[in-house]
């Protein structure tokens, strides 16, 4: 069984984000780059499938040579094989076409991705890859189990938990709560350094034309500093806050 995990290298949003000249992208030179946190959960889940059912775990990324760092991180966690896809992709649909091609070439049975990337927060690629492959998908999975070519997934919905039955092949996307990703082991890190990364090139005729375009990036307008009460006794502070919310802001 081949399990493919789609990973993306993203700017750490806890660090400073600068917008590059031209306002089309962020300044990647100054950004601190990490593996998308949801993708680490996807890698962890694939490793658990391998441990329980036996599988070859592939990690696949789409991007420039620097993105191979994210593949080496996943290899150090325990993934078996890695591939980097090079393609003229600029939006979720073109990225999904390129990744679907890689999934075909690897002949995967299960694809796991993060529910969304921490940078563009689209949450589209997993389901798009499934649609392009003609496979079923389940997004935002918090629990996953397999039995032969069948599986059961759970996802949190408003006011409850949805339980879904599916058959392989399948694409699932990982949501917080699915698992806690393991740390890379030292031998794993050493092994990952030497691992050859397969290169997959997907051309323009396969990825097609983009359907989304970023016109511009801006820093969000600062929310004006509000009315902050300090130095008051708890009772007086509470009284004044409720007075403001009730009489001035008319919110309660």
């Amino acid at each position, binding site marked *: 069984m081949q399990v493919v995990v789609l990973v993306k290298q993203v700017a750490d949003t806890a660090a400073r984000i600068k917008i590059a000249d031209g306002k089309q992208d962020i300044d990647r030179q100054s950004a601190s780059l990490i593996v998308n946190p949801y993708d680490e959960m996807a890698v962890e889940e694939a490793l658990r499938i391998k441990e329980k059912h036996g599988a070859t775990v592939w990690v696949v990324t789409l991007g420039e040579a620097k993105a191979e760092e994210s593949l080496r991180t996943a290899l150090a966690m325990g993934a078996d094989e890695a591939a980097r896809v090079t393609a003229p992709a600029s939006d979720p649909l073109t990225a999904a076409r390129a990744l679907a091609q890689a999934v075909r070439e690897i002949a995967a049975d299960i694809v796991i991705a993060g529910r969304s990337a921490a940078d563009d927060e689209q949450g589209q690629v997993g389901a798009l890859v499934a649609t392009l492959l003609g496979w079923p998908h389940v997004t935002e999975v918090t629990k996953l189990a397999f039995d032969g070519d069948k599986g059961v997934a759970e996802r949190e919905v*408003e*006011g409850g938990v949805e339980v879904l039955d*599916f058959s392989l092949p399948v694409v699932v996307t990982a949501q917080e709560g699915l698992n806690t990703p393991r740390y890379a082991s030292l031998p794993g890190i050493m092994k990952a350094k030497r691992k050859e990364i397969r290169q997959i090139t997907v051309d323009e005729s396969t990825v097609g034309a983009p359907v989304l*375009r970023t016109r511009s990036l801006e*820093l*969000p307008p600062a929310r004006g500093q509000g009315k*902050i009460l300090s130095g008051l006794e708890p009772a007086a502070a509470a009284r004044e806050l409720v007075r403001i919310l009730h009489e001035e802001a008319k919110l309660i």
Partner: protein
Amino acid sequence: MILAVLEAHEGSLKKISAELCTAARKAQALLGQDGVALLLIGPDVAAADAAAALDCDLCLTVQGDAFSAYAAEAWAPAVAVAAKEVSAPLILLGSTSFGRDLAPRVAGVLEAGLLADVGDLELADGHLAAERSLYSGKVLAQVESLSSVTVATVRPNAFAPAGAKAAAPRRSLQVDVADAAVRCRVREVRRQAATRPELTEASVVVAGGRGMKDAEHFHLVEELADLLGAAVGTTRATVDAGWRPHSEQIGQTGKNIAPSLYINAGISGAVQHISGVLGSRTIVSINRDAEAPIFKISDYGVVGDAIEILPHLIEEVRKLS
């Protein structure tokens, strides 16, 4: 026509459905379309009456064996059939667990641009466009769709719910989906007993963080929430500490909220939390640290210990009723 894909539960429309109706009316004017069509897929016929009574021009329904329980592989082609039926240039879904699962599948089937998790739509050089929040709210992007049909998921609470009017005409669509084409379907939905509004739908949210000091003190957050008819929220830190369930977590690895009023206590405002609350209309914060980042995005605030202030706040709010 603009097409909006509604959500129902046990014979009633969900709140997002009426909000989508308002969003669709606005988009109709924006694009110079001749009406709004609402689409309800599945066995919830009773909800179709409520849908037709919303401010729309046509109510479409899709029923049949393939639509007994949610399956994205059946729902997506049904949405595509409905979009074709009314020549829709724009298909709206909620940015809900349902919409986030279905919308990219619809976009994939139609090879359409999906404007995901947006609060409003606009025209930019003739293309449908929207402002999107990226990088945990640190960047705003204007994104445009280049396809002839566009799909968009609309954030809950971004539009006022549409009111009722005389029932619109109804049309039942025949959509054939082979059994073999559906390999993933909802088996059951385990409902949690809900005594409070759902976090992403609530118009008031009260949340507590690490500053509540332990799990027991959260009864103060719950009490204030119940007085205000609010949902209860929290931060990743308290979920990791096992004080609160993940279903209450607000922020990057939890839920994004956009209530009219967001009251938080003992939350310092990590970037991952702030990204999930920026859609709130008014933010009220209680924190003992005057330098806490949460105050930078707050409209009102009190510097002080949440555990000391909340009991007084509860008492003062109780006096209002």
